[in-house]
């Protein structure tokens, strides 16, 4: 077992805050446990609540290298694990035309021609690594099988080279928007964290941190309006990322208080659907101003 990264839950929160990520108790606790128990951490939740951001902050806070595997439909072993640099191999073969088969074969399948992809890279890295497997739900089921193998033993077998075992276990973070149910087997190997919208206090702190120069009273109003919007049944409730965007917009607009006019003109920043826009305007009585 290698040295744990963090000494206590509070330390996790502190160091993440130092990296610009304000973590709730749940987040800090789960990160601490993932580190202590040596398990991958599966983070699920709506878009824009800071799943990917958490990985970035973790890397920054622990001085690790961030290796990112972005999943998408059709991603395969060659993209996730490793592939051979065929072009270079061909060049090598053409360059040494008169050598024997044996020699050429040994040369061509060597370290020099291996292109490590994120998973292999994370495993071989002797330095501390945070491995982010982003949007795992977008990948096909077969990739999950591959992940199971890699994350279970932290080793990869390249037939021509042999088995490569992790010298240092990376801190693994998987994210998912839950568009597809991940396999039970994968979930069982992970700690599960459902990241949701933060409490108003935490969100205010995040906004003030990300948008310096925002008036405290304006920040308060922003959080209140966003909170009210989240209680409505919208197709896409505003997330932290959108709150921050909105705060930036307001700052750029030079608004110092939040009134109907300002909200009306800038609502598009936080609401992405026409129907949501109409509904919110309706419930917030933005029309009274115009009538």
């Amino acid at each position: 077992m290698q040295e744990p990264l963090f000494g206590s839950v509070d330390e996790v929160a502190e160091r993440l805050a130092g990296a610009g990520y304000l973590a709730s108790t749940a987040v800090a606790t789960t990160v601490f446990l993932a580190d202590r128990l040596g398990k991958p951490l599966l983070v699920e939740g709506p878009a824009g609540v800071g799943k990917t951001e958490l990985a970035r902050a973790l890397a920054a806070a622990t001085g690790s290298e961030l290796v990112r595997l972005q999943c998408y439909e059709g991603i395969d072993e060659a993209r996730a694990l490793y592939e051979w640099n065929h072009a270079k191999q061909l060049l090598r073969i053409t360059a040494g035309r008169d050598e024997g088969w044996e020699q050429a074969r040994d040369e061509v399948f060597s370290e020099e021609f291996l292109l490590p992809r994120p998973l292999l890279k994370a495993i071989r890295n002797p330095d501390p690594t945070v491995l982010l497997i982003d949007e795992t739900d977008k990948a096909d089921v077969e990739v999950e099988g591959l992940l199971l193998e890699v994350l279970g033993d932290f080793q990869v077998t390249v037939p021509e080279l042999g088995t490569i075992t992790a010298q240092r276990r990376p801190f693994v973070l998987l994210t998912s928007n839950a568009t597809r149910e991940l396999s039970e087997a994968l979930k069982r190997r992970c700690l599960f964290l459902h990241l949701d919208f933060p409490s108003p206090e935490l969100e205010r702190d995040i906004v003030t941190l990300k948008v310096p120069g925002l008036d405290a009273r304006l920040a308060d109003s922003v959080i209140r309006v966003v909170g009210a919007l989240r209680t409505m049944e919208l197709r896409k409730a505003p997330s932290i990322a959108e709150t921050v965007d909105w705060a930036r917009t307001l700052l750029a607009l030079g608004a110092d208080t939040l009134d109907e006019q300002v909200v009306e003109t800038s609502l598009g920043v936080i609401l992405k659907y026409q129907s949501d826009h109409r509904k919110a305007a309706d419930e917030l009585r933005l029309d009274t101003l115009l009538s």
Partner: protein
Amino acid sequence: MTGSALPERLVEFVGSLRDHGIPVGPGETVDAAAAVAALGLADREQLRAALAATVLRRSGQRATFDALFDLYFPVAVGAAGAAADQPRDATELRDALVAALAAGDEDRLRALAAAAVEQFGRYGSFGEGGSGGGGANGMRGWSAYQALDRVRPEALLNRVLAAIRTDESAFGEAIARTEARSRITRYREAVQAEARRRTAELRGRDRIARYAVPPQTDLVGFTTASRAQLAELRRTIQPLSRKLATRLASRRRRARRGQIDLRRTLRRSLATGGVPMRPALRDRRPGRPELVLLCDMSGSVAGFAQFTLLLVQALSDQFSKIRSFAFVELTDEITGLIAAGSADPEGLARRILTQAKLTRWGMSSDYGGSLASFADGWPDAVGPRTSVLILGDGRTNGGDPNLDAVRRIAERAKHVHWLNPEARTSWGTGDSAALEYARVVPMHECRNLRQLTRLVTELLPG
């Protein structure tokens, strides 16, 4: 909690989670114990997060988990809160509540919830000392209903608004109103949780856990769901339709690759002296799945109908080729209404009933007439590439089930599936023609979200 009591408590807790449909294996229990060992028991919120991280696997389980966690790892034993600032009667309590609601002070709200339960929630024969140590006979416990009935938090809305009010704008007012409402809801939940906790102390955790903790949303029956549960279901339906869409899309995409077109490959190989350097792949035949939905909108399946409408609506966002029909006594196409009604899912059912021609006389369903009018009225809606979903309980009110019409639809369609919101055991009882229909087309019990999810992901053809 002593060292030996903890594993026992943990096992009890896990057992209770299982009873509520959250599958927790022994491996997870061991993880949970390891997590507790790494963290210690000092911080309750950390303990909650640790257990959630180790035993939960999906987000819909959280509400049930929280309710059970509060039962098995309670904040306090006996009456909670300091006695000093306890309000003495209902008036004082309501005044304090107004202040706490206006300030949004969560801790104070919880303390006041405890106070309300302590003062007004008691029922049954407690000893005269009031501490619950008296006679153990008879039914006694703590009632959230009774406490809330005395406090009436909803009636405080205007007072809270008056306390919050800072500016006179309609906009500020609307914001304050939504805030106050959600705080009142949280207060209600706090009272309910507190009453559960106190009752559990009296009558044993297991019993209370079994009866008083509501099931997970995906196990709530469509026809019996309350308003709040329907709203919750509505939130879960969106990802489900997206899930379905990605599923169908990926299947179609997979079908595209592979398949070498031999003729074209040979033709191409002529350019390279007969060596097939560039294999030509067969072009994809765009086989877009077509979906036709036939929904029973009669009174008896109102909850289910509401819900299927939401599903239909969610699906029509994701696909271009979906036609929806509703029926009570007659069938009418509602595709346009659904497309237009995306802003207001709640009013959709009402508008369908008023704008589409579904009835002749009453509100009771006539399957025979409806199916016949569908088969005759829209012969072009169902073709060899169409999947038809019929949603209804198959209760014909004694009328002719018209199996022939279903047979005709099934002959023309690629697949027909019938989703029935009734329990399998009551199919064929009374006026239900479900079993007769089930002989013609495959029929599936679909009473809650979990069953629907399974159906959607396993049955619907790509």
